């Protein structure tokens, strides 16, 4: 071995040693920074996530831990008509809410993004306002406007269209749709702001090039704007859907799940079973169904994302 080679091996060993020292130091630093958050997440997310599953396999009440009963709670759940009503309501809400809030937010973002529009800041602030107030306040305001005995909306529905005793929240066929629309009213401003950011991120020279090629407004929208907004869409649809699976406040204030269970969502049902009836195990089983429904959504999102990335790379 020449002196030079010796030197090189020595340096390599030294480097390796240094690197492992740096590695260890980094790990210690990282753990110190992560510790508070990790402790909270472990105690209040990981532990309860496992505990809920264990609870769902027992026969426990709010006061007493019960014996292990296997999948009996799930069996009871899947053969109960009320449970399927709750699932249907939750899915119905989600598939109505997510597209509606997306389309509404996108349309308004497109309008505010037009050239020569004054007062963009004002309109943006106003439309964001319902997002600042609580769902409780929003629900109270709308419940007054829609109240069949004293509300302005039923009154005008009668005056203008001759609809008597309009009770949107008290009628099975319209209650859930009304809750969805109230939620769209409250939340679209947030999504609109995100769409506006997405629109401003699109390269303006693309539009100029398209104009030179003689593209009309619709073609520009279809071939430049929409593809440019794709990541925004991804984000909004998935958060809209996942958020929809957690609907509680509106139902609690406006309908308590009625009329005739037509607005009872899974989360509202978990609440009444656990904290109303004290049926911890049954509520835990419903929680796990909800959790799995959400995870499936997340997985679909992940897969479509990856497939899209792949197809874009292949192009």
């Amino acid at each position, binding site marked *: 071995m020449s002196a030079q080679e010796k030197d090189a091996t020595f340096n390599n060993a030294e480097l390796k040693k240094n690197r492992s020292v740096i*590695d260890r130091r*980094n*790990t210690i*630093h*990282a*753990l110190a*920074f*992560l510790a*508070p*958050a*990790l402790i909270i*997440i472990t*105690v*209040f997310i990981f532990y*309860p996530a496992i505990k*809920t599953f264990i*609870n769902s396999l027992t026969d426990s009440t709010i006061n007493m831990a019960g014996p292990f009963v296997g999948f009996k709670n799930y069996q009871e759940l899947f053969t109960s008509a009320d449970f399927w009503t709750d699932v249907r309501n939750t899915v119905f809400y989600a598939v109505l809410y997510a597209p509606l809030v997306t389309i509404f937010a996108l349309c308004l973002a497109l*309008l505010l993004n*037009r050239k*020569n529009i004054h007062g963009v*800041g004002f309109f*943006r*602030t*106003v439309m964001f*306002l*319902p997002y*600042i*107030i*609580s*769902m*409780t*306040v929003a629900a*109270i*305001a709308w419940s*007054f*406007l829609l*109240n069949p*005995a*004293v509300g*302005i909306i039923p*009154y005008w529905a009668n005056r203008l269209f001759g609809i008597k005793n309009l009770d949107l929240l008290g009628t099975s066929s319209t209650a859930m749709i009304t809750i969805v629309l109230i939620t769209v*009213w409250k939340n679209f401003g*947030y999504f609109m*702001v*995100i769409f506006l*950011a997405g629109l401003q991120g699109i390269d303006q020279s693309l539009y100029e090039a398209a104009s030179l090629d003689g593209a009309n407004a619709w073609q520009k929208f279809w071939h430049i704007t929409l593809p440019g907004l794709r990541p925004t869409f991804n*984000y909004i649809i998935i958060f809209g859907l*996942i958020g929809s699976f*957690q609907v509680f*406040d509106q139902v*609690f204030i406006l*309908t308590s799940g009625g009329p005739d269970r037509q607005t009872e969502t899974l*989360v509202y049902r*978990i*609440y009444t079973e*656990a904290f109303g009836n004290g049926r*911890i195990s049954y509520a835990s089983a419903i*929680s796990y169904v909800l*959790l799995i429904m*959400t995870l499936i959504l997340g997985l679909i999102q992940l897969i479509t994302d990856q497939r899209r990335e792949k197809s874009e790379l292949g192009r």
Partner: protein
Amino acid sequence: MESEKDVIDRRRIHRRRIWGNILTYLILVIVTLLILFPLFIVIITSFTPERLTEQWPPKIIPQRFTIANYVSLFQRLPVMREIGNAALFAIAVTIFSVFFDACAAYALSHIDFRGRGFLLGLMIATMMIPAMALLIPVYRLLASIGLVNSYWGIIIPRMADVGGIFLMRQFFVSLPRELDEAARIDGCGEFRIFWSIILPNSKSVLLVITMFNLLGNWNDLLWPLIMTSTPEERTITVGLAMLTGHGSSVTPYGVVMAGALISALPLTIVFFFVQKSFVQGIAMTGMKG
């Protein structure tokens, strides 16, 4: 020289643009009215005598105004106490959570260590877990150590938030590592780098996360509803929800609207102070995911 056809074309385009603008303004004004009308009704009704809120046909502007609803509200609810509870809860959670989230986000973006990708993936996965699915064990855990109906009981579980960590990490990643390296050569420790280089350069994302924490906790219903049992311990949002008799038809609307207005006022004022940077901050940070 312009030909006659060019002039006509230009005029036509010009006219179309004007009509487009008029239509745009019309829609924007209608939506603005739709947004403001229910909020306006809350304010008006809170000053309307109870008897007049129950009349038919309903009137948008009542014949006379009163502050009786506010007097009645303060008799029915320990309003100041509940606002104090909500403020303490929201502010304490925000301070802890913004700091701990930022710490975690710093480790996940500016320190290289084995298992970083795995840890990040695990955290993102927990964002999919519905809060309701965790509530029962959390409630029982806190009950077993006597923290139900206490300030710490509602604050501690919220002291870190995966969504906040993720949002901040996305922002921190965009800050160049050269900054840290330069500071490290100057002999700065990790905490100094985090505190005096990363945080001062992240004001927009910090504002967004702070506002989201304040809003999310002040406005939250389910969590403080479950964790408190007497009016003195409730937050204003829960107190307000209880006042409606949720879903029953005997709601005293005048009083409820007074409560709604009082509960919405503090954060609306905060929002107006920060609205420009807040909304721009959401646009900047909300979408990097």
